[in-house]
């Protein structure tokens, strides 16, 4: 009998090799969470610099209190789909809070951000339609395309000229959806949304933008790169998540489309799963309301992003973006071995960062990625830069070795 798991032997072998060297990138366990920026890992206090907790909303006392009250009043879970018994007053209040935050007529809450993209991509476009995606799109967008029945067209990352060329090859009468992201999470680069949206509209396409890595700190109201680029009126759907700046879990779509509500009856990843638990819904609502006015957090976040980018650049690291474009800073590694060594040396020095390698990364790059939090203090940022300088030399990421590799 053939073993269906044999096809993954190559991955097991690779992981075993790393574990033999004393590194287990998927084995990090958070033993205690001390704050949005500090945890105990392997018994040691560690600065968290890779958790997407951009606005540091996970320990706000009033948000926690709202969650505790909902847990007591409404129980541990809804045990049902949004379309059956899983819509509580809390879910409606959360959707109202989102509509208010984005100033849109409609908002629809999913159980995860992954499902929001999966559902929207697979439902909006059907047989005979075209879904046009950026080459560096998140896995949830690729998976949504695979789930749907539309023809899938991929354009060169952040390239309006290439998008225009590909849109012009499509039948003018066909339905088209262009899917974009405000911030691309691997390199932390932002999209030239004004241009991409203009090209999409000129070619008769509808537009959806995923603001997962931008909500809370881009644009005057924190609505994302769409707001910052001044193209909210032209974007048909904005997708987002509660698992980053909002500090809990869940996904959403907001829109002004007059026929939007029918999606609740058509979108399978919305219908065929249980709705979010009341406590999660209550914390998301409280956090979103709070995000409207946390200007000090936003300022501190951007200040830390700039300081870290500057510090890493001055130390000699090769950063993926020339300027700090988002709260994700990616360092391009000379090799996979050096990436693993630097990651392990940083953890040893008490800083948790992320590793990323192909096929998750574009152009075969190996990356060490940092995501900055609004609760990182200036002192923590300086500690992190010092740790990177030292670990950079120990691992060979900095100095003569890096140049040779």
């Amino acid at each position, binding site marked *: 009998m053939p073993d269906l798991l044999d096809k993954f032997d190559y991955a097991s072998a690779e992981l075993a090799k790393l574990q033999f060297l004393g590194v287990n990138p998927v084995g990090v366990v958070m033993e205690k969470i001390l704050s949005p920026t500090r945890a105990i890992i392997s018994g040691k206090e560690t600065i968290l610099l890779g958790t997407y907790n951009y606005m540091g909303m996970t320990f706000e006392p009033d948000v926690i209190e709202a969650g505790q009250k909902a847990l007591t009043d409404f129980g541990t879970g809804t045990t049902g789909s949004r379309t059956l018994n899983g819509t509580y007053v809390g879910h409606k209040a959360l959707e109202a809070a989102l509509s208010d935050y984005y100033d849109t007529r409609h908002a629809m809450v999913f159980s995860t951000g992954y499902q929001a993209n999966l559902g929207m991509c697979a439902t909006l476009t059907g047989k005979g339609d*075209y879904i046009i995606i950026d080459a560096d799109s998140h896995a949830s967008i690729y998976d949504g395309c695979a789930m749907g029945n539309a023809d*899938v*067209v991929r354009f*060169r990352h952040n390239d309006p000229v290439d998008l225009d060329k*590909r849109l012009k*090859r499509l039948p003018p009468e066909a339905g088209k959806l262009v899917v974009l992201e405000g911030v691309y999470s691997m390199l932390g680069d932002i999209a030239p949304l004004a241009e991409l949206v203009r090209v999409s509209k000129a070619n008769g396409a509808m537009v959806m933008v995923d603001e997962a890595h931008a909500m809370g700190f881009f644009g005057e109201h924190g609505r994302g790169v769409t707001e910052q680029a001044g193209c909210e009126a032209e974007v048909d759907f904005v997708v987002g998540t509660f698992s980053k700046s909002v500090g809990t879990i869940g996904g959403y779509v907001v829109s002004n489309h007059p026929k939007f509500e029918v999606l609740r009856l058509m979108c399978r990843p919305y219908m065929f799963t249980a709705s979010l638990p009341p406590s999660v819904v209550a914390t998301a609502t409280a956090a979103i309301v709070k995000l409207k006015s946390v200007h000090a957090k936003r300022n501190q976040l951007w200040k830390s992003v700039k300081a870290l980018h500057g510090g890493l650049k001055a130390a000699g690291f090769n950063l993926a973006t020339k300027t700090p474009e988002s709260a994700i800073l990616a360092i391009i590694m000379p090799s996979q071995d050096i990436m693993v060594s630097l990651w392990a040396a940083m953890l040893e020095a008490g800083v948790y960062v992320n590793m990323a390698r192909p096929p998750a990364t574009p152009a075969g790059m190996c990356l060490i990625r940092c995501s900055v939090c609004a609760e990182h203090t200036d002192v923590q940022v300086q500690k992190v830069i010092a740790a990177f300088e030292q670990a950079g030399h120990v691992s060979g990421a900095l100095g003569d070795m890096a140049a040779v590799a």
Partner: protein
Amino acid sequence: MQPTSATEILVLELITSFNKKSVPISLSSTFARDLAFDSLTVMDLVAAIEDEYDLILPLNMLPDLETVQQLINAVEALVKAKHHA
């Protein structure tokens, strides 16, 4: 291996440009197993073919295009359809 059509020659040329490991290519070579192309390489190859022929080769067709011959056949069909359109 004797190429039999202009499309075959050109598509083989494009595949060769992505064949970083210089694996010998035949019409029956599979992209994933024989040529060890990962999904990103295959998608980049598709983009190159699209630009060469000014057509669209939707990504959802890829699961059916496992071998070099299948890709050549698909491109030939798309080129034909484009001229008849």
